[in-house]
């Protein structure tokens, strides 16, 4: 079965610096797949490539069967990709309600949007209680909830999440992870980039580990969870093949 999202042989450059070396990975429909790695591993750049914010110098990105590398971001979003950006990036001067509607910006079906609005509020009671509040005044954890709810409003086939647990207290981390699992059970494919390997591997189905722009480990999450080589990948040593 063709994966929902596939990266094939991606080389990315920032000026003279190479960030990805022949990066290849795939995300099966209905799965939670996580991309792990330490600092300067190239995790965030991967998200930028998928979203069309950075163009790869070589390789292909395919979504739902079609090539999307080279397309402008707003076209990629319209194809059914949702985004929960790093550090949330909710619109600070807009209300919670307005943020949610921005999530549905790419959609034309008003009835469907209304339906999803109610559905999302049911899933995120904490957000529902603050609809008119200015989003910039929410706490970090609440903003993360809002960012996820906002992405769901687009009724995407695939949601990209960039470090969803960064900077959150343990309690909020629990909530976020629970919600990611729930969203996935309701049918949305999730591709997430995470620094916190232990947590990500608790809920993911498949995982890839990135080190300085190359995939050094990959496989089912339950296998990687107990693989001692992950520690090497994170703490800077060379990963035994």
């Amino acid at each position, binding site marked *: 079965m063709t994966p929902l999202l596939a990266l094939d042989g991606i080389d990315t450059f920032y000026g003279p610096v190479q960030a990805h070396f022949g990066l290849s990975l795939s995300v099966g429909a209905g799965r939670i797949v996580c991309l792990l790695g330490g600092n*300067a591993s190239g995790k965030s750049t991967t998200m930028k490539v998928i979203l069309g914010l950075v163009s790869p110098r070589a390789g292909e990105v395919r979504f739902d069967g079609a090539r999307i590398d080279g397309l402008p971001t707003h076209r990629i979003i319209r194809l059914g990709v949702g985004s929960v950006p790093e550090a949330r990036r909710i619109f600070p001067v807009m209300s919670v309600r307005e943020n949610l509607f921005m999530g549905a910006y790419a959609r034309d079906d008003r009835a469907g949007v209304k339906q999803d609005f109610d559905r999302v509020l049911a899933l995120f009671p904490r957000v529902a209680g603050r609809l008119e509040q200015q989003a910039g005044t929410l706490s970090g*954890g609440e903003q993360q909830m809002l960012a996820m709810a906002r992405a769901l409003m687009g009724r995407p086939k695939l949601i990209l999440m960039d470090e969803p647990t960064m900077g959150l207290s343990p*309690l909020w981390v629990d909530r976020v992870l629970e919600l990611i699992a729930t969203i996935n059970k309701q049918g949305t494919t999730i591709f997430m980039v995470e*620094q916190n390997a232990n*947590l*990500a591997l608790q809920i993911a189905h498949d995982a890839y580990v990135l080190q300085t722009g190359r995939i050094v480990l990959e496989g089912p999450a339950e296998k990687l969870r107990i693989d001692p080589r992950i520690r090497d990948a994170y703490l800077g*040593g060379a990963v035994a093949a």
Partner: protein
Amino acid sequence: MAALLQVRALTRRFGGVTAVDALDFEVAEGELVSLIGPNGAGKTTTFNLVSGLDRAASGEVLFDGRRIERLAAEKIAALRIARTFQHGRVFANLSVLDNVLIGAHTRLKAARPKLGPIAELLVALVGPRGVREEQAQLVEDAKAILARFGDRLTPRLDHPAYSLSYANRRRLEIARALALRPRLLMLDEPTAGMNPTETAEMEAIIGDLKRSGLTILLIEHKLDMVMRLSDRVYVLDDGKRIAAGRPAEVRDDPAVIEAYLGHSRIGETRAEAAE
């Protein structure tokens, strides 16, 4: 004997987030001390607070017994504290040589007369012998510093910094910092983004600097390198110090491993009121 650098109860908040939380640490003269911890632990913020680019909400920084937490960055550089930056900040349009010469700015005596900027301007235009000799001396010093990096930078003396490879830029940054003849050198992730060969080279250079007696404060993520180089290690997470001691003591500390790989327990639900 009091440590060269003493940081006491240093605190910095950004809006609702406490980036550095009552941090205590010290560095004795001649030591190489490392600050480690995951992303967002507050390490670079600590550097900014010590080097004068940022102001702490509370706490003290003492250098050689003198309080410096309220001083501007230029003054702290004049006290011979040098630093490099996490993403490498060289002067892109200056040559390699000029970059290093800027590092020596605080050592200019003949070219920076005490009488003030007008005198400095006139001296620069007239260019008396004392100034020319000083410049020649500084150029010699700069070349000697660059020679530490083998033939990485020396053949590129006149090249503009923007044309250098990433690794060379990081090396140049260190060379520039060394030109200040610092008593304390603060290195922020000097090997970030470098491959194993380049990392090993950099480790050798830092080792040489340590052996020459330089006091070094290092932020690094490559823990095996940290363990080999450091006299002592402080571990930060969420702005707080969670472990400290000799490398061997810290290496197998479960708190450290957890901090890096992430908290493995999915916590019990706490009372809503706690939030």
